[in-house]
């Protein structure tokens, strides 16, 4: 099925009956800038190419325009009349559609520039790496915790106190001395802890204590704090702290032994 390239063609197909060059009597509808015109070609004007196509402006009203077509193409073959009216209908329909669409929001197509897209993507990746988001968020949260925005929800004030103490110690003396002192303190604590338990409890428990104390050695600050809390609890209730951990085990066996030690203390 061939398409005709001639702009005056009525149907768009390349047939003998619809070729404007092959027929000496021909008519078309064409639209320009939203107005429709009826073009007619007559055999009398064949030697005058400039005046060949006669143009009639059609009415804006659809029915009146159809009547106009009829009146101009009276006595013309049925085929051409019919096809002209069909073409006119189609043209008016698409003109209406254009007008409707322009009232709605138009989508503006903005072309992407490939180089820029690539550049932006790469920069974003690098920025992401440089941002170190997790660290930044954690730092910010810890800052807020320090500045007490959370109020009393989180129970870390003891630790804050201890840390403040340690900081004071560190500030008052040089760093190495403070470290040594702290280490001594820790050792002292440990020694106290272990000796007391040695005298009181059985070997099994001692081993457990030693293990736990060695575990605590590995963790630094929590250990100091735990020991501080342990030493505090030791002051108040001598053996309940460690004993609490193994209460189901202890209660059965060591009730007798604890009593004499409390007396001695």
């Amino acid at each position: 099925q061939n398409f005709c390239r001639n702009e005056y063609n009525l149907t768009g197909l390349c047939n003998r009956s619809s070729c404007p060059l092959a027929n000496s009597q021909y008519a078309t509808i064409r639209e320009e800038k939203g107005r429709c015109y009826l073009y007619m070609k007559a055999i009398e004007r064949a030697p005058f190419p400039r005046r060949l196509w006669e143009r009639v402006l059609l009415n804006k009203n659809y029915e009146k325009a159809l009547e106009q077509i009829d009146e101009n193409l009276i006595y013309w073959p049925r085929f051409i009349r019919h096809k002209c009216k069909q073409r006119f209908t189609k043209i008016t329909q698409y003109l209406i559609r254009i007008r409707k669409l322009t009232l709605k929001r138009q989508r503006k197509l903005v072309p992407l520039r490939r180089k820029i897209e690539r550049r932006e993507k790469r920069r974003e990746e690098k920025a992401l790496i440089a941002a170190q988001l997790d660290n930044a968020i954690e730092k910010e949260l810890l800052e807020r915790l320090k500045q007490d925005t959370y109020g009393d929800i989180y129970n870390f004030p003891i630790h804050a106190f201890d840390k403040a103490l340690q900081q004071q110690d560190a500030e008052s003396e040089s760093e190495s001395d403070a470290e040594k002192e702290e280490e001594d303190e820790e050792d002292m604590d440990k020694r106290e802890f272990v000796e007391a338990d040695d005298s009181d409890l059985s070997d099994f428990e001692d081993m457990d204590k030693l293990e736990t104390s060695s575990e605590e050695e590995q963790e630094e600050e929590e250990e100091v704090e735990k020991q501080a809390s342990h030493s505090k609890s030791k002051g108040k209730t001598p053996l309940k702290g460690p004993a609490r951990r193994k209460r189901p085990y202890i209660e059965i066996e060591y009730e007798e032994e604890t009593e004499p030690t409390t007396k001695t203390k």
Partner: protein
Amino acid sequence: GSGSGSMVGDGSCPVGSVAEDGGPSVSERVLFPPTFSVSEIKNKQRRHFMFLRWKQQQRKEKLAAKKKRRKEREALGDKAPPKAIPKTIENQRVYDETTVDPNDEEVAFDEATDEFAPYFNRQTVPKILITTSDRPRGRTVRFCEQLSTVIPNSHVYYRRGLALKKVIPQCIARDFTDLIVINEDRKIPNNGLVLSHLPDGPTAHFRMSSVRLRKEIKRKGKEPTAHVPEVILNNFTTRLGHSVGRMLASLFPHDPQFIGRQVATFHNQRDYIFFRFHRYIFKSEKKVGIQELGPRFTLKLRSLQKGTFDSKFGEYEWIHKRREMDTSRRKFHL
């Protein structure tokens, strides 16, 4: 020139032999004229070979210099000069004169009287409307839903061909404070996030990229609950950045519920704003664990408009002009 002349004999042999021959012969006589540079050799193979050799030499020199420096440092011991700080883009950033000084009075005054003042004074509670462009596809719809779970007091409405300009008066009538429009392109939310503060407030147009829905995030936690999250705004230094930061902060209600332990972060780095949503837990005083829930995306500011959304007649406060603003790699605007 004489450079290419000295290599004539080698050029006729295949490359392997050139490498072998060129090595000893050149190390014996380093006789290039002072204006010779590797890029002047016309023959690609030879030029490439000379370039590699030059590179190796550079590397050796650099290594030697490093070793020397390290020895010096060890020799000096305590008195060695402190290590040099490596240059990063953030270090080298071109100083922006609109950087906000925390003590600046003018800025403080401006912020007390701009459009977000009622929000920051706790007079208004944010109510957000999230919508998309026409006919959103699956990903966009799901993203909108997740976004609405992340931002408390937000509603998602679909747009069936309504013009934004007509939507805005309706929103104002129904007491919304912010409007978010997510534009999409080829089924993914892509080109635009329009954030409009409603009663006559500024409109920011961002370009959104690398959107990850909840199911695409690895090691995520459970769904975000309805508690009001905290907001973290990082690195918004300039005036423009400040106003954008305030705008983003005004999306969330002002009183976070700490029980929920959720935090929404807008982190600005080199003009890219990264949004993340986490749940945190304080393991001890110095350690906090965070777990990512919630969608994540990055934004890049394209334009900031003074009034509500109006592309033709609006007064633009800031537009990203590529030719003028992207010239330097170390200049950032937020």
